[in-house]
């Protein structure tokens, strides 16, 4: 008996949402399974879904491992998740409008001023500017883990430019191609409207000065970026141009794109580029990736930037601990999804607890992402724990700690057959004129036995995520 919640098997019985998958997986002969796995890999390789891993110097065109065993939610489970995710996306955006405006939540003493205003992601240059529809974060990626039948926790929020949605779409595509029968036997909610909805969301936040059908573009740092495939994939599916900084220029009070038919005015920029790089006249002067003068046009309402510059202040891991407070403060509601209990090392009493219990905690950098620079206490050697302790003590404010969660598992194809592996979930909530999300998300799976780290940069894979119709 494993202490982890297995999403398929409970008390030796198959949970209803997985009922039809039991026979499917049991009946699949090993040679067919291997053939299907090879087919999936070949398809991914042909389409070109690859993932560059930072800091490892490995194959830049490495494939992200794909697991064919789907992860399944019931309609009821999803309904609760959806409500919780939308609630969180609304609160995060209300917070952003507030802290770049009057800062009521800080004045009310509900979140420390220091955490907000001295945050490296707080961008004073956008103070007083309210983006169209009052939206700063247009695509909110919320990382959720499950520890029991109805226990879900939000691990972190991603308000800037969460990646991975292409894997969500491609995993579904792949499954439908390889196992069409599964989609006849199960009533699975479709997710293929995502690109259409993303386009609609972006168009809905066109600036006031735009008086026609808005021109939307995706701004990428270029093909060296690890998520470049996703940038081009989304541009393609939305039918918008994929541009680099040099393809755009400011003339007078607007931004234009160079095209073969001459300059074309751009209204909405979905940028997959950090704040620091988008305009050398406002941020890092040495950036060659951005568009000089872009921020002046933005702040005077000539173009929209998604996510809005400054959105990052809502999603660092220290601010995260206050999201339930934001929900109560702005919405007057109780949080539907719980936070993971979090210790802030910047606070003396928390620091004491953390340093005394490092062996059983997960410690993360406040601004870290991608599973880098973190400690998983129970899975680390004494030396690793001691090394990390020194890092924390040198700069406590830079770290938070959480209990090691008993992440749920789902059946996963492994060398020896089928075995439980830990998973998380990242749904993508779209925020524009309306708030919506497609039923599903990206399920990431820790392919190494016992591993709790699902990041693709750390040996994680992806699965198709099903939400069953009522």
């Amino acid at each position, binding site marked *: 008996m494993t202490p982890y919640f297995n999403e398929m098997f409970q008390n030796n019985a198959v949970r209803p949402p997985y009922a039809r998958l039991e026979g499917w997986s049991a009946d699949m002969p090993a040679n067919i399974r291997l053939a299907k796995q090879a087919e999936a890999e070949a398809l991914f390789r042909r389409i070109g879904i690859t993932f560059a891993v930072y800091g490892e110097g490995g194959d830049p065109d490495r494939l992200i491992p794909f697991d064919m065993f789907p992860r399944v939610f019931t309609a009821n489970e999803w309904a609760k998740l959806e409500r919780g995710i939308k609630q969180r996306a609304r609160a995060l955006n209300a917070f952003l409008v507030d802290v*770049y*405006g*009057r*800062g009521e939540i*800080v004045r009310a003493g509900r979140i420390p*001023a*220091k955490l*907000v*205003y*001295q945050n*490296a992601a*707080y961008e*004073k*240059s*956008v*103070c*007083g*500017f309210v983006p169209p529809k009052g939206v700063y974060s247009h695509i909110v990626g919320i990382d959720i883990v499950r520890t029991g039948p109805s226990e879900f926790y939000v691990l972190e929020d991603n308000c800037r430019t969460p990646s991975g949605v292409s894997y969500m779409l491609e995993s579904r595509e792949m499954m439908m191609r390889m196992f069409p029968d599964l989609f006849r036997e199960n009533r699975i909610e479709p997710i293929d409207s995502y690109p259409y909805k993303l386009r609609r969301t972006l168009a809905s936040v066109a600036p006031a000065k735009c008086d026609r059908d808005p021109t939307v573009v995706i701004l990428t740092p270029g093909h060296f970026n690890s998520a470049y495939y996703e940038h081009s994939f989304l541009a393609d599916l939305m039918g918008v141009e994929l541009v680099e900084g040099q393809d755009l*220029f*400011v*003339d*007078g*009070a607007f931004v234009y794109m160079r095209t073969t038919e001459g300059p074309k005015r751009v209204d909405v920029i979905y940028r997959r580029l950090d704040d620091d790089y988008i305009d*050398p*006249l*406002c941020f890092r*002067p040495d950036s060659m990736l951005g568009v*000089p*003068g872009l*921020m*002046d*046009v933005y*702040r*005077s309402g*000539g173009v929209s930037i998604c996510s809005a510059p400054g959105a990052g202040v809502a999603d660092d891991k220290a601010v995260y601990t206050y999201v339930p407070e934001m929900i109560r403060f702005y919405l007057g509601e109780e949080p539907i999804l719980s936070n993971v209990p979090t210790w802030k090392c910047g606070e003396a009493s928390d620091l004491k607890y953390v340093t005394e219990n490092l062996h059983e905690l997960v410690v993360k950098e406040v601004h870290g992402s991608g599973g880098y620079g973190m400690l998983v206490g129970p899975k680390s050697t004494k030396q690793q724990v001691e090394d990390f302790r020194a890092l924390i003590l040198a700069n406590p404010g830079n770290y938070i700690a959480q209990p090691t969660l008993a992440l749920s598992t789902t059946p996963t194809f492994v060398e020896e057959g089928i075995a439980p592996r830990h998973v998380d979930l990242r749904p993508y909530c779209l925020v524009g004129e309306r708030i919506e999300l497609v039923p599903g998300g990206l399920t990431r799976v820790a392919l190494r036995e016992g591993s709790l780290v699902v990041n693709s940069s750390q040996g994680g894979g992806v699965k198709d995520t099903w939400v069953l119709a009522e």
Partner: protein
Amino acid sequence: MLLSVEHVTVYRYDRPVRGVVQSHRLMPSKFDGQKVLDWSVTMTGGELGSAFRDGAGDWVQGWTVAGPVDEIEVRVSGRVLTTDLAGILRGHKELVPPEAYLRNTEATFADAALQELGQIIAAAESPLGGCHNLTDAISDAIAYKPGSTRAHTTAAEALAQGEGVCQDHAQALISAARSGGIPARYVSGYLQSGQDGMDHEAAHAWGELYIAGIGWIGFDPANRCCPDDRYIRIGSGLDAQDAAPIRGISRGSGSEILSVTVAVQTQEQ
């Protein structure tokens, strides 16, 4: 005092460039100590871009110039009626919370020496007295010597070498003040050349420190004083680069030669 300003910046390119984009903060701040009588900013061949007042209260104006072009002149001229408010920035509308100015940048990173100077504030009887003491200490620690530092010299570097210009004074002041827990920012503006024989810099910079209960107050270590009616305030930022009156970039391979002349004079009223 009635001050007139003539500020001309000329960019020459050894090969014509394809275009220029600039972002200006070249308008005198709106507060009780300044009244603009007339003011103009022109840019040869320039097309007016976006304009707005930002959260810090500065007027921002974008410009673009379509190339090819090998010379651009930015000319600022105008007259401002100033009043001595003992450095207090009274009646200035802004939205950025003072706490946002506690953050240091690369240029204002406080090393041990700057942190030690920052303790001067807490040692004084009042924060205001502490800020005056700190201003004097920075003035003592960094001798005015034109040409001794570059645009990218950090506060710590300037303090270590003990020489610098107004930019270095201002950055060292705000760096030390922040480490002493006082919100502080870099201010760019103009200063009327004095009759006291000192070689003042007409395109000037100083610091503003925030004292709860009073508000933002200017301190000028270069002249060991608070800004008075000889000063014209233009804009502010976290450091010199963030507060630069002109930020710009040119497209093309031509290298740039910059020349700046500034004259600030008293006029009969």
